[in-house]
């Protein structure tokens, strides 16, 4: 009996189990915002506890507190019933807590063994002990079924393999409890399956796992319990087996649909932008879009909803000519613009408000006036015969600064000295003032304050009412619901469904965003 007890407190890796970990009443304030508001959360040995919530719900904050990167303003952490203080990642590692970050913390030019040993004292003092490290890595890999070669260089490994190195690293450092921060965000579906096999093995061996995600089907597949966070508060904790995706979607996006701008009147016109079975790659080399088709008409806003990283970026870039379309066609006003140069597509009056406005939408060290002509500098009245017309540029800038209410000392102010909201107004002014036929707006209000958000949304609606075709890509479901005439939900590079505004509910969209057809109630088989 005693022997069995001792045996059971040990994990196969030799580390002592963490039987339970509890976070009680955790509160964390940042200047002007409550990131965690009396959050309760606990995890036990032998379970996967999923932490579910939208971007900004406070998942990362909570886990950073547990890992010692942030310090809570209130609340306590109990490890096996005893209060502990975690003031740095070193403390949490000593307690047996490991974290797999969304962005891997590996040195690509070093081997797996070197990465694992990095920052740890050598057992041979000043000499390296990489052979011993390698031996231990092989042992751990055997126990947990993680196929990995300790002598391989990290840059040679696939993303999924790199993630295994991160897991090995945590196990090597004696982790009994592992926090996996959106581990599937960067993986292919096959790699996700492999990860789940590893996770199941670890749980069976007595580890405690915290799984952070906003993909419902994954949460349902892998977790034993699930806690939903929203706006920094715990909405509830349930046994996964006693809940449905529908419930979880309600909880996750369950906020009242906020401020709805006056949409006014619009007449639906001809098709302006049309995609036909468009495929393209992603930066990771995996498929980015897998056969996307839809039309955007004059006088409508088509919202593209979806969880970040499901192909939105690739979609915008393949329309604007910034990413190569591998098959399928893109039509602008009936003309084939597939794989034309970005400049040619621009000149056919497609405007693009890019997602990363500071990087892609704006030249920080150019003046506002110079930024206002970024797309049109080669046309009259801004230039003639290759010479800039400074007067025309200045008039244009002054006009736009006034009509778009850009707060700036002058048109000669450098863009980098403006606030985020004003920078977005400059981009918006530039893209709208050319009277485009189609506007493609990607995350146009992300990071903006309430006033600027309202302004940007109103401008997009006015464009629609003027007869422009607007395609709005947003991860903010409220925004999508407030502005769109039709809503296309993108999931893993495909359009799940296109829902007319009247039939769209947050619950329905939430399910679609998670890859579930409401009527079928099952994830789409890839």
């Amino acid at each position: 009996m005693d022997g069995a007890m001792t045996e059971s407190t040990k994990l196969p890796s030799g580390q002592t189990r963490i039987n339970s970990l509890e976070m009680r009443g955790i509160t964390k304030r940042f200047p002007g915002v409550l990131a965690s508001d009396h959050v309760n959360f606990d995890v036990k040995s032998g379970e996967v506890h999923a932490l579910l919530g939208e971007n900004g719900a406070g998942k990362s904050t909570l886990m950073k507190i547990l890992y010692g990167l942030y310090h809570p303003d209130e609340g306590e952490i109990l490890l096996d019933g005893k209060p502990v203080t975690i003031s740095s990642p070193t403390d949490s590692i000593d307690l047996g807590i490991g974290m797999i970050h969304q962005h891997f913390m590996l040195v690509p030019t070093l081997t797996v063994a070197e990465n694992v040993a990095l920052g740890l004292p050598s057992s041979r003092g000043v000499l390296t002990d990489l052979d011993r490290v390698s031996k231990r890595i092989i042992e751990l890999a055997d126990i947990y079924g993680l196929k990995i070669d300790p002598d391989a260089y990290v840059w040679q490994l696939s993303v999924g393999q790199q993630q295994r190195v991160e897991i090995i690293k945590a196990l090597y450092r004696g982790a009994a409890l592992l926090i996996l921060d959106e581990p599937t965000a960067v993986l292919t579906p096959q790699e996700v399956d492999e990860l789940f096999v590893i996770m199941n093995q670890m749980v069976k061996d007595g580890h405690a796992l915290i799984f952070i995600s906003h993909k419902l089907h994954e949460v349902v597949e892998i977790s034993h319990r699930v806690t939903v966070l929203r706006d920094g508060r715990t909405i509830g904790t349930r046994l996964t087996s006693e809940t449905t995706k529908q419930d979880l979607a309600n909880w996750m996006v369950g906020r009242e649909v906020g401020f709805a701008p006056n949409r006014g009147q619009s007449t639906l016109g001809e098709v302006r932008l049309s995609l036909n079975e468009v495929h393209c790659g992603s930066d990771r080399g995996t498929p980015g879009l897998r056969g996307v088709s839809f039309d955007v008409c004059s006088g409508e806003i088509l919202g593209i909803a979806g969880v970040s990283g499901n192909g939105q970026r690739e979609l915008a870039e393949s329309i604007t000519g910034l990413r190569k379309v591998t098959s399928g066609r893109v039509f602008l006003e009936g003309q084939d613009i597939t794989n034309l140069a970005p400049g040619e597509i621009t000149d056919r009056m497609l405007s693009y408000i890019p997602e990363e406005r500071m990087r892609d939408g704006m030249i920080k060290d150019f003046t506002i006036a110079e930024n206002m002509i970024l797309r049109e500098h080669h046309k009259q009245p801004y230039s003639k015969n290759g010479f800039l017309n400074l007067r025309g540029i200045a008039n244009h800038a002054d006009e736009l600064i006034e009509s778009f209410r850009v707060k700036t000392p002058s048109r000669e102010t450098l863009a980098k000295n403006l606030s985020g909201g004003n920078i977005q107004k400059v981009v918006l002014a530039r893209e709208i003032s050319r009277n485009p036929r189609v506007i493609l707006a990607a995350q146009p209000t992300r990071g903006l304050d309430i006033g600027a958000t309202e302004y940007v949304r109103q401008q997009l609606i006015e464009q629609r009412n003027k007869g422009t075709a607007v395609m709005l890509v947003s991860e903010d479901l409220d925004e999508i619901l407030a502005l769109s005439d039709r809503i296309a939900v993108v999931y893993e590079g495909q359009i799940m469904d296109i829902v007319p505004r009247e039939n769209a509910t947050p619950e329905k969209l939430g399910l679609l965003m998670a890859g579930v057809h409401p009527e079928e109630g099952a994830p789409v088989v890839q």
Partner: protein
Amino acid sequence: MRSRLSTLFDALLPVLATLAALAVGAVMLLLLKVNPVEAYGALWKGAFGSTNAFAETLVKATPLLLVALGICISFRGDVINIGGEGQMIIGAIMATWIGLIFTDAPGWLVITLALLAGFLGGAIWGGIPGVLKAYFNVNEILSTVMMNAIAVQLMNFLLRGPMIDPSQAELASKIPQTARLIDEFHLARLAPTRLHLGALIAVILAVLVYILLWRTTLGYRIRAVGQNPSASRYAGIKVPRYMVLALLLSGAFAGLAGAVQVYGVNYRMITDGSASGFTGSAGFNGIVAALFGQLHPLWSIPASILFGALLVGANSMQRVVQVPSALITVLNGLVVVFVVSSEIWRVRRQRRRLAAAKEDEAPPTPDQAKVQTEEAGQ
């Protein structure tokens, strides 16, 4: 008020840095048991003491300015051109070749053609690394430096063989030099000194480069690509094309500097086997002059004169107070080090001021703060 003083201080910073460099130089002079006042007096007199002295300074400044103009273009386009030496050499070879084959043509025509040939030669020599960078992702710092080595060997080969002065070819000495250009082909003198038309051309071109960079769509695009290639691509600018153009134009101005050296000063090409034997290191010093002039073509004019003065004055200092010539190199180096580090200091100060100004603004609204923490939380 404080900010105006700061601006003035920033503007004067290169001058202060030069003075600081001269102060360190003074310590070295003292260690060599030379009176620094006497030495710097000789330097000043050598550079500005007489009409001839000042003309010499301007003669030295001319190739520096031409190279610096090219550097203004390439660095504004965020391509680093370290190939000025090689581009000068190729420009000079092409220009010299024109002067040697068209001996019967009128002087004005040959000079015009020769300067254009120099421009073209430098453009080719700068354009090659430009294409390699823009389309094959070859680091332009490496490729331009390597193109320098190729240019030197090409010059040595041509001056020992195909382009050698026929009279030298018959002699046993076989000095590696071309024939001398006939007098009609020499650039006109501007005063009864060695000062030649090239100086005026360089100043006019400085104005033209200013116009190019800030008044034309080409300059707008080069600067846009240099500041933010990603946003330029999004706006529909063909980024690789303007990278190539920036390096090509940069090389063209260096090539012109080489042509002007031949037609205004040397009247022939002669090699001692090294690049600097012909260029006087103007291909490198021009970079310093451009940086000193804040990469602004007009500010590059006084900057080039300063470095021309240092070169000329240092020679006379060496003669008068008998210091080793290595000290002159040291002095030039000190100026470069001080000016470049003061520039870094200036940028940091500016950044700090900007950060301080931002903190003074109203505290972020809850939404902004939320976004910031979320970004920090990713």
